[in-house]
């Protein structure tokens, strides 16, 4: 079953509506429904909070403020700097001020709007520029240098530019939700739609003022997450748990979509400045790059996200002389958070724009400039943070994609089209992806599992990973089935619970299968060792004579038992049939002081070619064709992996084209519903969409049967869409200046870029 295109384990439940999400669980009698009262100011002191109208409203059972929290008023995961309920200071519009529980959800939501709040308005810092100006940062800036950029002022070929990419709303289809059920003696069971049950457990316990062990967090599946339920699920779980404790009744808190979009963090938007020097062939000689991101009111995961942007602003290119400075700006907006790619896409965005600018400046096809700058043999195989690439397959992979997609022929066709078409222009781009696999927070690189064998031969599988649609459960089940040599049907996938596997890492950083699959495999090996020992002792055989075959075990040449018989025998012989398993990622280390080390276990690679058309009059654009070639190693499950590649690509395309997060100058989020925030729909899927898993792919690391992590990397294949649009925009003018296109490439931003190119012809 390894390397087979099997259906998602819950597919039949999904299509029949029988798959249960947190909001679908049967509610215990007496369940209350909760809502937050949210700030209507962006930055303000709370002078008075009159909750009498809220308490008096129909159906209201309890109202809590920060003062009612018995333990820690904090949802900050890394730094305790973000209150669950604001105390006297409001730091973004939509920040929870108080929590209401009522007998019906609409009554809670209605009541939550009735508070009388007296604010003293303070000036908000909303934009990156304002924060830079005011020196407002959530963390100290980071600098990573290699070689020297001193040569830049005198460089023969030099471009200086400014870039911007937008934020992105996760838009998981299942909104944030938690159901807290109080138990006896201070215990609390929380069903939470989260990627990080352990963190929810810790934050809930701290808020309640009880030991971690008194809190159990459980979930079977999430209705999408994409990073948006790593830290952002906490406030809802904490709110529900606090109200459950106060009322001694179960409390469910489910965010309305608008409140969810206003109240939860997004992908960081970035502002960049670059200064690049290069030779006549387009090879980069020196790059001076400054990144600045909007981090919102608190640290949240901004440290690691921005670090990853620094790690990935080379994308696939060797930067001999480089200086990168990364600013983490504090703003009065909701905290920026994890989002598929976790800063990686924003780092690569800059690399691809710089390479495209060089190509345009020199009048060379951008693909040739890209190839010229790829990592290669020593000494061009060491990243700017000092990690030696041992698995760089990009030169070969790109050549293959170039041929398969007929890039050169189509380049000529695009040129011919553009020469004769004044109102529509086509654009073409091939962009690579190199994405580092491992959490950059070193301690997180560990996984745990728990496997039970029952006497009927069925297998209960549990591990610390969460299922959010990525197919983690089926992949780990495949690994377990292969290890035990039993049919997949015997393996019962079970809900993730902090009571079964403790101290887990978030299911994030694309690492779910690697760390949980290997942990489950470890548990299976422990069980097998016990079974082998039992066979050896009972049947007087050598351990190496005990061989696991499909659904049976051969002991020497003469004796064969079915798997079920063996388990039953082992039980009677009092062999323990439950085992934990554990895995930690080897060989990673990083020195943050020097910004040098080996932060990643391996790299995932891919490349994509996109062809677009742009309407020069209106700025509308359309993706006509995409060719994706992605290295998922020896894919554990090609059907699941293909789903990740296609889905990631379209999600990345959304970020770079139509998805626009808009805050006004007062810090109001204007795009807080799907009516104003548009994610791709079916017709945005390109009419020609070729997706290939790279057949030669094989992980150099012995992990997960030499497959590769695939959750995040394909998102960045969508940089080809943006670069193709920029290419088409560039075709409207003959100048050599960089195409001034900002992301997302909405019709307006495209038209603006065309307009600017024409305003400065020939500069």
């Amino acid at each position: 079953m390894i390397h087979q295109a099997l259906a998602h384990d819950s597919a039949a439940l999904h299509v029949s509506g029988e798959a249960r999400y947190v909001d679908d669980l049967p509610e215990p009698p007496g369940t209350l429904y909760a809502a937050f009262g949210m700030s209507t100011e962006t930055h303000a002191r709370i002078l008075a909070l009159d909750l009498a109208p809220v308490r008096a409203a129909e159906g209201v059972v309890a109202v809590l403020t920060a003062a009612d929290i018995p333990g820690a008023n904090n949802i900050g995961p890394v730094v305790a700097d973000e209150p669950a309920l604001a105390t006297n200071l409001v730091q973004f519009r939509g920040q929870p001020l108080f929590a209401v529980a009522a007998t019906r959800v609409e009554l809670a939501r209605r009541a939550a709007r009735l508070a009388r709040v007296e604010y003293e308005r303070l000036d908000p810092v909303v934009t990156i520029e304002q924060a830079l100006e005011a020196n407002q940062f959530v963390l100290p800036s980071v600098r990573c240098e290699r070689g020297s950029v001193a040569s830049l002022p005198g460089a023969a070929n030099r471009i200086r530019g400014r870039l911007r990419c937008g934020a992105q709303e996760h838009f998981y289809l299942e909104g944030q939700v938690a159901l807290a059920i109080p138990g006896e003696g201070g215990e609390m069971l929380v069903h939470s739609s989260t990627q990080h049950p352990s963190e929810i457990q810790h934050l809930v316990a701290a808020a309640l003022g009880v030991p971690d062990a008194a809190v159990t967090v459980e979930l079977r599946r999430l209705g999408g997450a994409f990073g948006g339920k790593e830290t952002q699920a906490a406030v809802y779980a904490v709110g529900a748990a606090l109200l459950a404790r106060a009322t001694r009744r179960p409390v469910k808190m489910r965010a309305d979509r608008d409140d969810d979009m206003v109240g939860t963090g997004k992908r960081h938007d970035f502002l960049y400045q670059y200064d690049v020097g290069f030779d006549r062939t387009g090879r980069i000689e020196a790059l001076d790059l400054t990144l600045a991101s909007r981090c919102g009111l608190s640290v949240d995961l901004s440290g690691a996200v921005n670090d990853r942007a620094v790690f990935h602003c080379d994308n696939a290119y060797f930067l001999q002389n480089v200086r990168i400075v990364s600013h983490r700006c504090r703003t009065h907006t909701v905290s920026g958070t994890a989002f598929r790619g976790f800063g990686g896409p924003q780092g690569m965005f800059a690399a691809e724009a710089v390479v495209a600018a060089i190509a345009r400046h020199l009048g060379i096809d951008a693909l040739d400039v890209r190839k010229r700058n790829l990592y290669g043999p020593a000494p061009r195989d060491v990243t700017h943070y000092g990690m030696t690439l041992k698995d760089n397959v990009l030169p070969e992979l790109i050549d293959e994609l170039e041929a398969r997609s007929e890039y050169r022929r189509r380049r000529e066709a695009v040129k011919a089209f553009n020469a004769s078409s004044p109102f529509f222009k086509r654009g073409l781009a091939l962009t690579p992806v190199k994405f580092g696999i491992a959490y950059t927070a070193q301690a997180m690189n560990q996984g745990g599992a728990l496997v039970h064998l029952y006497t009927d031969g069925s297998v209960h599988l549990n591990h610390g990973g969460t299922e959010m649609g990525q197919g983690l459960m089926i992949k780990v089940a495949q690994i377990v089935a292969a290890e035990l040599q039993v049919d997949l049907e015997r393996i019962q996938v079970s809900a993730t619970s902090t009571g079964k596997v403790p101290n887990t890492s978030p299911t994030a950083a694309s690492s779910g299968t690697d760390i949980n699959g290997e942990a489950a495999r470890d548990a299976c090996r422990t069980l097998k060792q016990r079974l082998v020992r039992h066979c050896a002792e009972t049947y007087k055989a050598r351990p190496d004579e005990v061989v696991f075959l499909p659904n049976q075990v051969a002991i020497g040449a003469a004796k064969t038992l079915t798997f079920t018989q063996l388990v039953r025998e082992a039980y009677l012989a009092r062999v323990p049939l439950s085992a934990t398993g554990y895995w930690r990622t080897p060989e990673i280390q990083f020195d943050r002081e020097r910004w040098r080390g080996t932060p990643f276990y391996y790299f995932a690679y891919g490349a994509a070619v996109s062809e677009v058309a742009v309407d020069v009059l209106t700025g509308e654009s359309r993706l006509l064709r995409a060719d994706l070639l992605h290295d998922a190693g020896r894919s554990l499950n090609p059907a699941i992996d293909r789903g990740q590649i296609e889905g990631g690509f379209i999600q990345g395309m959304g970020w770079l084209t139509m998805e626009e997060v808009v805050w006004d100058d007062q810090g109001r989020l204007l795009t807080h519903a799907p009516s104003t925030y548009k994610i791709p729909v079916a017709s945005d899927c390109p009419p020609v969409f070729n997706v290939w898993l790279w057949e030669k792919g094989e992980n150099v690391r012995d992990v997960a049967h030499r497959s590769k992590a695939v959750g995040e990397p394909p998102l960045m294949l969508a940089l080809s869409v943006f670069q193709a649009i920029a290419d088409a925009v560039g075709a409207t003018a003959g100048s050599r200046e960089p195409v001034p296109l900002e992301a997302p490439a909405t019709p307006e931003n495209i038209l603006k870029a065309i307009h600017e190119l024409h305003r400065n012809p020939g500069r």
Partner: protein
Amino acid sequence: MKAALDFLLNGERVSLAEENPSRTLLTWLREARGLVGTKEGCAEGDCGACSVVLSDVGPGGKLRYQPVNACILCIGALEGKEVITVEGLKKGDRLHAVQQAMVDCHGSQCGFCTPGFVMALYAHCKSGAPPELSDAIAGNLCRCTGYRPILQAGKRARELADWQQEAAEDAARAKRIVALPKETTRVKGFFSPLSVAEFARYLLEHPKASVLAGGTDAGLWITKEHRQLDDIVYIGRVAELGKIEETPRQLEIGAAVTYAEAYEALERIHPHIGELLRRLGAVQVRAVGTLAGNIANGSPIGDSMPVLLALDATLTLQKGEAAREARLARFYTGYRKSVLLPGEFVRSIRVPKLAPGARFAAYKLSKRFDQDISSVCAAFHVEGNKARFGFGGMAATPARARQAEAAYAAKGIEAACTALVEDFSPISDPRASAWYRLRAAQALLRKFHAGASSRALLDMAP
């Protein structure tokens, strides 16, 4: 007059006397019936996670299947129909062809949007002459798959379907639906008449009542503004309002006619109108939303309005038994304000057809092609030396560009583009800036002048 809501749910007869008719179908299914397969994604009719299928017997006795957004549909609007939810598709342990196709094609990942897609595809599968698959699921958002496998599943489902069994089910369903009681209903503050006379009388007596047709806007008053609607009159069962009368020179579209029902007739006026309607909402919205509702609501962003302005549509307004005509161009007096008097309602819309030799075009600009609200929407009509340009997104209400019209007829395209700046000072909002709106409006006028297709980019070959 009866005092209960009568409809069918997955084949079962339901009669509700105590339930609030303005309750949404979604909360009723999930909370009252425990049918939690239907999901809430946005509670505003934009994501399709709550899609269920409504089946009814349409004009001409044809059994219809239409997907709708349960999150913004009041249960009062279900009378005379059967609601089919995702729980109603499986036969014993056997998945329906649509469900099996979704499994076979790996069409689900997180699975949360999946029941909605299954129902949209089911309606598409059952509806006979189909629109494009991507149109059939344009109202359903999926954040995981990128849609390719779902589109494939839509094709596969038709191969897997047991058409004989489907036909047998259709026959049984039609019989059940026809057997539902046909009487005026009054439940609490909810009134659902069968005739215009009853409706007109009721509205005279209850001038503050909310008139409910498709409820694609009113549903949000409930889910987002938490308003309690105590006095509602529902016009979806008034047969006289559900008609389209066609003469050689015009269409007269009744107030209860849905976008889906009006589509064909309007598309025949000009293909650009069809394309505009294709991009208006999505199947779920067009299945219940009405042209009249869009007009009576006075929303500044109604995409049908520029077309109606350019064609110089007129409205028949009725109060009690008295009717009067009003030109659409004179209907609005301000943001969400109109000439409608208390107790008066829009009875029908008269849409003139194009005269021979008349030139017409309609364009829509938005961040996303399908199911998005326009940043700018424009329709152009020129007959002889008389021009009528209708614009949406350029002012507080959809409006004519009278100076540009005059300039176009007198001085030509460049003068008209310049004059647009005099006609409009649009606002900047999250959809577009004032700068873009003006520039784009000029671009659309140029497109019309050049005779450009409204589908040029969409039809471009890969």
